């Protein structure tokens, strides 16, 4: 029997995976492996990191070095690994809970430092594994397990947060845009510095049922598509309207020195023009 072209990257005996039927996380595993395959990523030097939750299971299926199992601490792990051995390729798979809720502090600091790792955020707009509770990314007014009267909170724009904090490659796509998502993951993997790729994805079981009144993956994807807009379209919309929309595209691609430690000997200390020397 002919094996799938990505089969060789999967951990032996790990299938079938544990994702629900129609889950976006499994697509993102596919996107990543496709991107990695296209750039011939060396899996002996790859460290895949997952925290806790459905998304955190993505790297578990990969035949790479893998760390898994603590909520929100993916970036601290990555920081330790990358600083000790810069030759390793470190890729983080975080859900929106991992990245924006419990791990939010680590996200802004990894971006600020320009830590040379790639973070792929599967944003399914909810806490999927625990039963569909409201997340910091849940759109306003929708029903979730903890907001039966409709979400009263303002959601995070994670890409904006990453850009503002100093990430040097930032993109957002959806599972409804596989080719674009794969291209941006490839760019992120080849980028030197903190690359952040958010992929808005469907959770038919726990977001779909409660927020969209459907557990059909296609209907969920249709909803994501209807609410997706381009960066140019977004430029003309009010912040209130944007809270309901997914702005897609690449937001930043920049270059600055990567983080090698907080106290480093003999680092060439060229400063920006206008920097005032301390007395």
């Amino acid at each position: 029997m002919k094996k799938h072209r990505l089969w060789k990257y999967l951990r032996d005996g790990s299938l079938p995976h544990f994702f629900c039927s129609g889950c976006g996380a499994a697509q993102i595993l596919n996107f990543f492996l496709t991107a990695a395959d296209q750039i011939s990523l060396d899996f002996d030097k790859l460290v895949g990191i997952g925290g806790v939750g459905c998304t955190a299971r993505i790297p578990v299926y990969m035949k790479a070095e893998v760390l898994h199992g603590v909520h929100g601490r993916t970036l601290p792990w990555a920081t330790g690994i990358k600083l000790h051995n810069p030759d390793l390729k470190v890729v983080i798979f975080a859900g929106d809970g991992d990245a924006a809720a419990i791990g939010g502090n680590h996200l802004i600091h990894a971006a600020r430092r320009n830590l040379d790792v790639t973070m792929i955020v599967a944003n399914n707009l909810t806490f999927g594994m625990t039963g569909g509770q409201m997340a910091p990314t849940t759109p306003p007014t929708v029903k979730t397990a903890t907001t039966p009267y409709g979400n009263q909170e303002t959601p995070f724009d994670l890409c904006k947060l990453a850009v503002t904090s100093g990430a040097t490659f930032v993109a957002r796509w959806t599972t409804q845009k596989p080719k674009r998502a794969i291209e941006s993951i490839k760019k992120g993997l080849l980028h030197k510095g903190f690359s952040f790729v958010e992929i808005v994805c469907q959770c038919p079981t726990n977001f779909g049922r409660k927020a969209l009144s459907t557990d059909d993956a296609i209907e969920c994807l249709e909803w994501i598509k209807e609410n997706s807009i381009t960066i140019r379209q977004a430029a003309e919309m009010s912040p209130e309207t944007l809270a309901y929309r997914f702005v897609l595209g690449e937001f930043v691609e920049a270059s600055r020195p990567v983080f090698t430690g907080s106290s480093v000997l003999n680092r060439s200390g060229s400063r920006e023009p206008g920097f005032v020397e301390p007395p």
Partner: protein
Amino acid sequence: MGDIQKRVLTGTHFMLGNHAVVEGALAAGCNFFAGYPITPANEISQHMGLRMPSVGGTFLQAEDELCSIFALSGAALAGAKAMTATASAGFNYMQEGLGYAVAAEIPIVVVDVMRCRGENYATQSDVMQLRWGASGDHEMIVLAPASVQELFDFTIRAFNLAEKYRTPVIVMSETTIALMREKLVIPKPDEIEIFNRKKPDVPPDQFMPFRAEMNEVPPLPDFGEGYRILHSLNPHDEMGWIAWNPQVFDTLYQRITGKITANYDDIVRVDEYFLDDAEIALVVYGSESRPAREAMQSARREGIKAGLLKLNTIWPVPEKQLAKVARQADRVLAVEMNIGKYAGEIERVCCGGCPVSRITKNSGQIHSSSEIYQAIRESLN
């Protein structure tokens, strides 16, 4: 400080306790440090910020203690000998990462410089949170230095035990000794015993990453050496695959706790003073052993047959040594700088052999030798 580019500062020094921790770590081969500012542990981070880059290691000032402890795990799996230092209130945050390091069997070293509720007064109040704070059933190795020399020596030992047993090891420091300057003798590098983690002796396709005999420690390759291991907190089988069944759970966690309990004799260290003929035996750990030794000597001068058992490893509990003392002495006196926590352990082990009384102090001050001497006299009445 001499030549800061040397890893081992062989010679005789008059050194701050917190700096001795740094020098001990570097002598043990520590090449990754992460820390978040907190008093009274700051001199460890500050000195690491100076020393670590000079010997080619990594210094990270973390955004919080959670980052510190998890950066350690990441670095250690990438091959580093990694350490962090914090103080009681910061140690709280590290419980999550300690629990992970226990379950995923990651060698790291944590220094807790104990302090009192937002102030930097002397205390031994963390003695239980060090042992029991992390979630999940676990053993914990905790060493209790009592001097600047022991801060140096025990930090080296902490790295060796962490590497040998693939587990986190805690150095329980105290305000009293961390902020004190004292004589320190640093030996030559070749006189310092160093233990490095066991590496696999088979190629990746034959390696079972979590296979080991009961109570043994599986070898640990570095990330990037081609072994492609899955490390998870979740119950995992010998291949590392996340597997939920009672058999896997039982076998894995019995081995992880068993590797500590079965090697008790290798891990536990005590110092014994005048116990052979002692009628009253003081049991102490950490800086409280200093006034306690003075009190013991005063009692001896007065004709009271006092002895002292100093616990250098406090977790696991030195049960054999405690039981022996309880058989020999007429009374055990537990001395402690908190509301009386470890005294419960001493009572648990000793109560079958002889009565145990306690002298505890929770006022941000170490016991004076006269207070302990008084307690010795009173316990004889």
